[in-house]
């Protein structure tokens, strides 16, 4: 089903808060793209440009005690749930002050204190790990929920089915949040999914499946707010599919041969930030207020990048630290 909740505009400070999250994600990802081009970051990075509405709308609906599990394209989720952009950027730059002590890179950023249980390099595992986190909440009688992010590519993996089936059987407090961004790795949606909507699969598990416009941060926020409340109240899981669009390739440097030239040129027209700016009048938000928030968000990220670059790389002694919780292996 498509979310049909009437759109009564949220309070202005709520709109500005979500707008700020989107702008921080945008600025962060643009800084990553630039830094990667300059050769400042080792390894691989996957950016979420164009998908800011989904991450900000979903995480913006959560409370501090709620938890998220994320994917290889997880910068937006982590930032929006409260991870520090400086420590994230430090991780991307392989600095010891990064969340993984500069040893893990983009795909493993986590801030457990903020409820971010981690990006993950294995497609689909966010769903199984998310089920486990929800199990913890249930066993401990906590009134919180988990949002497990995944993409339409992961929806075809075995663990997607296993996780949603278990969550339904156990009526766990979890929201499965699919960012349907039109491409999984290097091939389009149709290669991966037999149905028009991933959300339609929820019917097979007996919980609600909702399609939402991922370019509309307010619609995403509304849908996740409802699903999270239901989850925390013992109402069980929800599958939300946000239809969005991945501006860039699967990874930075991907020539995107699978997109048309027209699409490569004009893909950026699907822009959740511009969408909100265009609606400012209708929502009763002054354009100047949006511009101010945007500038502040960009400044925060600029500062985070500068801080991260000043930090040290990890010492060689960190090669085998944190492998075990106790003394290192003989």
């Amino acid at each position, binding site marked *: 089903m498509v979310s049909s909740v009437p759109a009564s505009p949220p309070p202005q400070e709520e709109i500005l808060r979500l707008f700020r999250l989107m702008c921080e994600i945008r600025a962060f990802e643009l800084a990553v793209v630039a830094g990667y081009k300059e050769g400042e970051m080792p390894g691989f990075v996957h950016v979420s440009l164009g998908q800011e509405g989904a991450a900000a709308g979903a995480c913006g609906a959560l409370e501090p005690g709620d938890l998220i599990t994320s994917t290889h394209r997880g910068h937006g989720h982590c930032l929006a749930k409260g991870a520090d952009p400086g420590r994230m950027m430090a991780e991307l730059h392989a600095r010891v002050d990064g969340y993984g002590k500069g040893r893990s890179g983009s795909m493993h950023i*986590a801030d457990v204190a903020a409820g971010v249980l*981690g990006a993950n390099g*294995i497609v689909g595992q966010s769903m*199984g790990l998310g089920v486990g986190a929800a199990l913890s909440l249930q066993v401990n009688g906590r009134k919180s929920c988990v949002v497990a992010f995944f993409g339409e590519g992961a929806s075809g993996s075995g*663990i997607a089915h296993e996780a949603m089936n278990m969550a339904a059987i156990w009526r766990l407090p979890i929201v499965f949040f699919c960012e349907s961004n039109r491409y999984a790795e290097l091939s389009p949606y149709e290669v991966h999914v037999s149905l028009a909507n991933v959300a339609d699969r929820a019917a097979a598990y007996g919980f609600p499946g909702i399609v939402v416009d991922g370019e509309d941060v307010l619609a995403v926020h509304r849908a996740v707010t409802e699903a999270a409340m239901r989850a925390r109240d013992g109402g069980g899981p929800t599958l939300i599919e946000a239809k969005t669009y991945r501006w860039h390739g699967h990874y930075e440097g991907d020539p995107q041969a699978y997109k048309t030239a027209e699409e490569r040129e004009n893909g950026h027209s699907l822009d959740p930030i511009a969408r909100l700016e265009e609606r400012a009048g209708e929502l009763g938000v002054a354009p100047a207020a949006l511009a101010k928030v945007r500038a502040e968000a960009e400044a925060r990220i600029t500062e985070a990048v500068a801080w991260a670059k000043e930090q040290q790389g990890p010492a060689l002694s960190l090669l085998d630290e944190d*492998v075990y919780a106790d003394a290192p292996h003989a």
Partner: protein
Amino acid sequence: MRPMPSIKYYQALTRALKEEMTRDESVMLLGEDVGPSGGIFAQTRGLHGAFGDLRVRDTPIAENGFVSAAVGAAMTGLRPVVEIGFEDFLTCCMDPLVNQAAKLRYMLGGQVSVPLLLYTFGGGGVNAGPQHSQSLAAWFAHVPGLKVVMPATPRDVLGLVKSSIRDDNPVLCLLSKKLIGTSGEVEGADDETLVPLGRAEIARPGADVSLVTIGQMRRAGLAAAEQLEAEGIEAEVIDLRSISPLDTETLLASVEKTGRLAVVQESHAPCSVAAEVLAVAAERIERPLRARPRRIAPPFAPSPFTPALEKAYIPDPPRIAETIRRMVAT
């Protein structure tokens, strides 16, 4: 001192689970048929009744999903114990074990630990055929971040399962199907003596050859040692018990003393635990050995279901004794 009670191998498991679940409310059990049915070997009988639905949970047949869930639960404050009925089915949950449980602490810069015990029944001797008889310890001992134990007596099942539940790392406890109905003495219920991980046991002292046994091969090794004793050959039988970490200290001290090393296991020789034991000795023993070291292992072939073929497949006391006779004769 009170006499030590004698219980069966599987009962030691049940007792360990019950004691630890009583001691620590964060311990929960999940797996296929661990609940009201009490398990295929009656190994979880009574636990569901004692601890209820929340903490003793039957799962769907979805090893990837529920092991991933256990990892997610372990990251968020529970101490899950997972049962996988047959060790062969570990191939269905390699990702959550190898890519998640083993690496999360490292990847997340020490922000989490993954206190998870997975126990399973492995190995041969019960005519279970190629997909229900494997001993895969070497696969997991190869992975930094995991611990692997293989108890061969009720006392070690009790002590190692309890220690493993209290350990803050992911531990695999690879039990032997063949030993399920065997009996042995254990500490009384009020005795908190635990068997530490990483300690081998000298099951029988001897001066002529170090015979290292793995899992159920302890019994075959002891029987072979008895045969050899009648011929004047003293074999020192070392039950490895812990595959990772490996007790190199006990191992090397014995080989230094005897000058001869044989390892008996029920998995194939190439790239195996026996191969690792030989490598450790080759690298670290100063003086030349008195005989070429030997791996006593099945042929490089799947385990047959045929009773006569399986009997020839798994090393038995006559074969072990003959190998050692030749080593001592050279």
